[in-house]
């Protein structure tokens, strides 16, 4: 599922409920949610969505790496990388789909 498919599915939900809201609203909502998540996370703020999961930053200490081509050593500075941990409900629902033998599809 891509971002535009997600927007389309949310718009379908709105239509099913006879909501006043339309596709454009779903589109702006998805953009607003993702922008807020990206900007909060990049400022080091944790994201915690009950039943879905949490996002935070993991620290990577500085290290001496190697240029695989030349073999010369380069110092890699410390950095932070985004990390996601699935919540209980998501974990259980996804694991159940394995028992039901649903195949994994790489892309939509």
């Amino acid at each position, binding site marked *: 599922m891509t*971002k535009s498919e997600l927007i389309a599915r949310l718009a379908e939900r709105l239509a099913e409920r006879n909501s006043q*809201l339309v596709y454009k609203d779903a589109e702006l909502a998805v953009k607003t949610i993702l922008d807020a998540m*990206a900007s909060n996370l990049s400022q080091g703020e944790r994201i915690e969505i009950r039943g879905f999961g949490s996002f935070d930053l993991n620290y990577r200490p500085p290290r001496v790496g190697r240029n695989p081509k030349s073999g010369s050593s380069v110092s890699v500075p410390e950095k932070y990388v*985004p990390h996601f941990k*699935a919540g209980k409900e998501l974990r259980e629902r996804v694991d159940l789909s394995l028992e039901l033998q649903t195949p994994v599809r790489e*892309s939509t």
Partner: protein
Amino acid sequence: MTLTKAELADLLFDKVGLNKREAKDMVEAFFEEIRIALESGDCVKLSGFGNFQLRDKPQRPGRNPKTGEEIPITARRVVTFHASQKLKGMVEKHHADKQG
């Protein structure tokens, strides 16, 4: 400070102009649609943010750390998240800016 569903709903109220009920429902539906896709075996690609992928892990031998007893860890399907280059770049930029 932690970003939660309540804060996201407030943003939809303030910035998108949804009413409180619509905002709460929209946030709930947003995460539910992602869960539905993942539980149906579909990976989720949100450009500019990241990809949620599925990995099937085979059964492997495990151990009860308390008793030392050997018990198999059953086969399972797990969700992994890979941040997009854009999100990784935002994280590194903020860190670099803070360092001055």
